[in-house]
């Protein structure tokens, strides 16, 4: 795939990006013995942005997309936690499945054909482990004997992302293993309660501002002897990435303005707001993939109270985010993929919760999405040891996104995923 330079990107970028892009690029290398140049990095990608949302802990899919056509079986297996039939909302594109009322904030988007629900997604031989399962999704590789420690987005970045832009991919808060691979560029940006970057500067002694440039230069000193020590190299590279991205991130957050109101006192919504600030920056930061995680979905107990709260947070946060993207004219080139490490046991347990299970839905949201329900409904009677049977390989979802959103060919997607998978068609 062609890798446009920043200059090419400015010339060929969409009009919606606005005139701000022709602002002169500030040269901040004038600080002494700087070893790595700044602001000359190539940007990569086709201008599209992928936001990955991880619902950590295993979101119960059957209480997210409710099997209305099998309601009696559902109610029978889940007498303690079943969502009452009359409360289930119609789901665009399906007469057999319905939407939990706790995601009502996303229903207008679904009704407008902007939400794809891909059903019964998983990997072969499920291990029912949080870490075992999420690691497979992070890597995009279900083989348990692999020594590969790279993430699927990380491998995509190393092949097709920018080799120099520290903000090529961005994790909000921490950085998921999904984004790591040798050669991949990734930054992690902590967020404060207002959706601003938290402490994303390299501070120096406030008493001696005249010494700051000397300090910044010395902070870039690298051990040229090319250490074979993995973590020395990693800290060195990441420190330079931090120094190279701090000013850009600060500027992006400072110039953002929006009339969209995000939910208060909600770390997930704050993280989405920070993504909006970075995604809408002018000049563009060139970030192709953002990653954010929300935990708490491991509802072994009290699911009936805990999961609705989480769903409401997801829906209200994503609604505000989508509104913000529309307001900034980037909704057409941004999609959100929402996944979780496994579905939960079909039958509930005596503590009003559900234990670990297997297959589950993946959700993709955005103007570029062909809304509807993909794949056959999961059967509640044809089970594997009490768990749903997988119908769609999770890498089919990945390959669809790589080919139809990140702009790669089928063979390039196969290179990232170490195999050929099926385009599911939810991105046209």
């Amino acid at each position, binding site marked *: 795939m062609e890798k446009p330079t920043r200059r090419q990107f400015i010339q060929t970028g969409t009009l919606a990006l606005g005139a701000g892009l022709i602002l002169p690029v500030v040269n901040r290398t004038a*600080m*002494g*013995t700087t070893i790595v140049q700044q602001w000359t990095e190539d940007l990569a990608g086709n201008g599209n942005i992928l936001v990955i949302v991880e619902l*950590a*802990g295993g979101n119960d899919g059957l209480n997210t997309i409710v099997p209305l056509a099998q309601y009696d079986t559902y109610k029978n297996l889940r007498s303690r936690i079943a969502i009452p039939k009359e409360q289930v909302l119609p789901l665009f594109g399906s007469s057999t499945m319905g939407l939990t009322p706790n995601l009502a904030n996303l229903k207008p988007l679904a009704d407008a054909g902007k939400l794809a629900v891909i059903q019964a997604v998983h990997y072969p031989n499920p*291990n*029912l482990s*949080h*870490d*075992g399962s999420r690691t497979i999704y992070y890597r995009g590789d279900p083989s348990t004997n692999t020594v590969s420690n790279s993430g699927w987005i990380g491998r995509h970045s190393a092949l097709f992302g920018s080799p120099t832009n520290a903000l090529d991919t961005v994790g909000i808060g*921490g*950085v998921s*293993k999904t984004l*790591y691979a040798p050669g991949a560029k990734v*930054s*992690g*940006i*902590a967020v404060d309660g207002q959706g601003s*970057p*938290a*402490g*994303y500067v*390299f*501070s*120096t*002694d*406030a*008493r001696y501002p005249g*010494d700051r440039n*000397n*300090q910044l*230069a*010395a*902070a870039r*000193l*690298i*051990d040229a002897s090319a*250490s074979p*020590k*993995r*973590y*020395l190299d*990693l*800290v060195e590279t990441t*420190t330079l*990435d*931090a120094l190279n991205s701090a000013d850009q991130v600060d500027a992006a957050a400072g110039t953002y303005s929006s009339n969209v109101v995000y939910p208060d006192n909600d770390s997930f919504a704050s993280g989405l707001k920070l993504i909006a600030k970075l995604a809408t920056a002018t000049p563009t930061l060139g970030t192709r993939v953002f990653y954010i995680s929300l*935990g*708490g979905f*491991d509802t*072994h*107990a*009290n699911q009936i109270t805990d999961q609705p709260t989480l769903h409401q947070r997801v829906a209200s946060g994503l609604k505000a985010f989508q509104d913000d993207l529309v307001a900034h004219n980037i909704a057409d080139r941004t999609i959100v993929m929402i996944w979780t490490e496994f579905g939960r046991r079909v039958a509930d*347990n*005596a*503590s*009003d*919760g559900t*234990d*670990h299970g297997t297959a589950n839905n993946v959700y993709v949201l955005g103007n570029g999405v062909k809304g509807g329900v993909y794949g056959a409904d999961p059967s509640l009677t044809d089970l594997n040891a009490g768990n749903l049977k997988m119908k769609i390989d999770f890498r089919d979802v990945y390959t669809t996104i790589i080919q139809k959103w990140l702009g790669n060919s089928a063979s390039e997607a196969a290179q990232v995923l170490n195999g050929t998978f099926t385009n599911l068609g939810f991105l046209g």
Partner: protein
Amino acid sequence: MIRRAGFGARPDEINNYLSQGFEATVDQLINYEQIPDPDVPAQPTTPNGGFDITLLGPDDIAAWWFDRMIKTKRPLQERMAIFWHDHFATSISKVNPPNGFKYMYWQNQLFRQYATGNFRTLCKAINRDPAMLWWLDNIDNVKGSPNENYARELLEIFTLGLEAYLAGVYTEPDVQQAARAFTGWGIRRGNDQPASQALLNGPITDPALVVEIPPTTPDNSRPAQRHDYGDKTVFGVVRNLNGDDIVDLILDHEPQRTHAARMLGKKIFEHFAYEDPEQNVVDHLAAVLLRTDFNIKALLRDLFLNTKEFYSEKAVFALLKWPVHYVVMAIRSLQAQVNTRTINGNARAANNATLSTMGQQLLNPPDVFGWPGREEWSTTSQLLARANWVNNLITNRSAQQGNTGVPLDAVLAIGNLGANATAEAVVDYFTSLLVQSPLAPGVRQGLIDYLKKNDNGAIGTFTLDTTTKDKKVRGLVHLLLARPETQNF
């Protein structure tokens, strides 16, 4: 070894270790029970200035823990307390008021008490630890439709590991049957019932009075009524098993016993030496555990005395310091006086440049797997947080709230650095204080140049006068602690 097994040593401590020799030092490190520890505070301080277990909050516990880590003469005990906190990861995100913070305090004491004890004893203590019973939902585990959360993680995370599951050493039915063995293990109803919102924090001060364990013979008690007394089949053994029996089965029954020894031996080696150790290293450490019935102290003693890979070149700079290691080592090496309430990043001491921004808020691991660590300690945000925290530490010149900062003159005096000291001598001294091996020549020269540079960037002359100390030496310490070499063991 002192750096990797503790929190780094002050110059006076290093001299002491050197004079007494290697075996005596290992002995002092391991058999810390014999070492008086007069400087550590015995209990946290609650906001009322005293110690009131009903008012105890996470900030109080964390501040106290940091005080202990900074002041202790038994560094291995606190290092292992952190290790167990990560291994049996439990979080205030769920174990919270009412009563949860008290439970977290009890659990923290448990990790200190059993820091280098017997692993079987520790696992059985965790079986009846109120924070864990709550965290993994065993308080809701009742016969009929058991809750599998604790049983699964006991097998997968605490003792056997996912590799054992994938190898068929334990199976889904084993998990479900083990869950039956733990039915009824819970927390008493009443003042300390977590689900009750009636009382913010219960008055009970003894964990044993909080938990309820099913009696051997069924009776009318609540735990007996909730426990499944039927036969369970775990690892092929059919018996009326209870929770402690499951721990015994894991540590006595083959092949599970060997797998548990390998998992634990490997994890402890990876905590102190390097990741993905060779097969023979794991075999060796597992053999020590099997020979000593899972005695952690014996394992550590062997690791520090007999395991040559611990001292190999491969183990140098092989591990990223965890944020808590990094922070405590910086404070100790520089003899800084700090208000430890500002370190962890909780509500009562809101401060972005704290452990939470570095990715490791104590008492709040992300999930039951603990902190992911490895490369996930090194994001751009987290490294900036480390550098900015050090900048705050070294440029603090006030004497507010217990923060009197780094006693720069005293630190310089230990290095015999007077007014005629050269820039080279200053860089070399602080390097020896903060970094375990010399810096690359180009890096060393760059830092020497930094000391000599005027504000316009030109190299000037270096004189260790009052202004240079206040400006350049502080700047140098900041730069050194932001370097890769000080972020790694």
